[in-house]
Structure formats: C-alpha cells, structure tokens
C-alpha cells in the first residue's frame, strides 16, 4: 500500500515565524501536491510538483513556497506565517503525470498561527 506521511499532525506557530511542513511518500510517485482544507471551501491546491526540483503554482500559492529536492519528499514553506494561514494542510501523491491516477493523501497537519 502507498503510504504518505506528514511530519506533524498538529502545529502551533506564531505570526511571522518561518514554518516547514514535510511530506514523504514511499511508492516512487511522480506527482506530489499540497492542499489546504477549510470548512465550506473544500480542498484548494497550493502547489504541486511533477518531478524533482520542478514545481507549479496551484490555485492559492500566495504566501507559500515549496521544495522538492528528492523524489519522495515535498516540503511546504510558509516564509512568514500569518493568522489567515491557520488551516488543515494535506499532502498527496499520484503515480504518473496524467489525470488518470488516483491521489493518495497523507493524514494532514492542522496548523494554528497565533
């Protein structure tokens, strides 16, 4: 079974701090994704990566950056956390470059910025 793990289930940070969220998948998937989930808004794509060192902006990239130095690891970075970035963050991966493969999600990180 594919396993997607995220570094923390819960995280509390202060406004202005730099925050790193880590995601690791163990099945050699090409694609990796970062979403944020807010009540009533569903899952919104922040960034995705289709290869090592390759990244594409999603629908809400402002205030975020990403890094993919190794195929199995995809990091989300909040350069200067703000209270409006309090949310649930979900990482996902999929096998190939197309839209024919399902996405496998990690358990999520609930980030609170105070």
């Amino acid at each position, binding site marked *: 079974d594919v396993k*997607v793990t995220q570094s923390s289930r819960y995280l509390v940070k202060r406004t202005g701090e730099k925050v790193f969220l880590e995601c690791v998948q163990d099945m050699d998937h090409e694609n990796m994704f970062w979403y944020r989930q807010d009540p009533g808004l569903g*899952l*919104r794509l922040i960034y995705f990566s289709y290869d090592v060192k390759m990244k594409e902006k999603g629908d809400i990239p402002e205030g975020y950056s990403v890094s993919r130095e190794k195929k199995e690891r995809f990091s989300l970075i909040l350069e200067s956390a703000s209270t409006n970035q309090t949310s649930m963050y979900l990482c996902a991966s999929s096998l190939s470059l197309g*839209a*024919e*493969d399902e996405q496998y*999600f990690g358990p999520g990180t609930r980030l609170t910025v105070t």
Partner: protein
Amino acid sequence: QQPVQSPQAVILREGEDAVINCSSSKALYSVHWYRQKHGEAPVFLMILLKGGEQKGHEKISASFNEKKQQSSLYLTASQLSYSGTYFCGTSAGGTSYGKLTFGQGTILTVHP
C-alpha cells in the same frame, strides 16, 4: 473555478439511496471522487475519464456527462460506513500534470 457540488449535505437512513452531483463550467478530461471521514485523510473512490473509461471500487457507481461537464456519484443501499464528506476533483487534462480542482464537498450522514 471550483466545480460545484450538490447537495451540500444529505441525511439518510441505512438502506436508502443518494446521488451527489458535481458540475463544472470548464471542459473536463477526468472526474475523481474521494470520501473523507472525520479526522482522516480523503480516500479514493473512483475516476471517470473522457471517453467512458472508469476505474475504482466495485461497489461504487458514477456517471460522467462530458457534454454537460457533470458527474454524479450514486450511493445505493447506504451503510453507516458511507458517512463522511464526499469531494469531486476535476481535471482539464492536457498539460495539467494530474492537477485537480476540488469541489466544496458534500456531507453525507447515514443514521441507523
């Protein structure tokens, strides 16, 4: 533009049926369906592709109307385990690299 799901919420008794709809304003290549139970990660249910191909769980059925850019998920003879939030994710294909745009979710509650 996020796809629009309807209804926003539905309450059923065990054994009843439900239909969840997903509508997009853009031409679609694929529609994905996922279910998320409270406090858990979303889990894959089904993919429907332009041209009629489908893959997913045998007990789940869905349709994809390419002309209307709509998909429907059919939950028949519901069980307590069907409770959760259902999301559709849509892809325009092409160079989108598997990128999905998700709807806002439909909350399904099944009571005994």
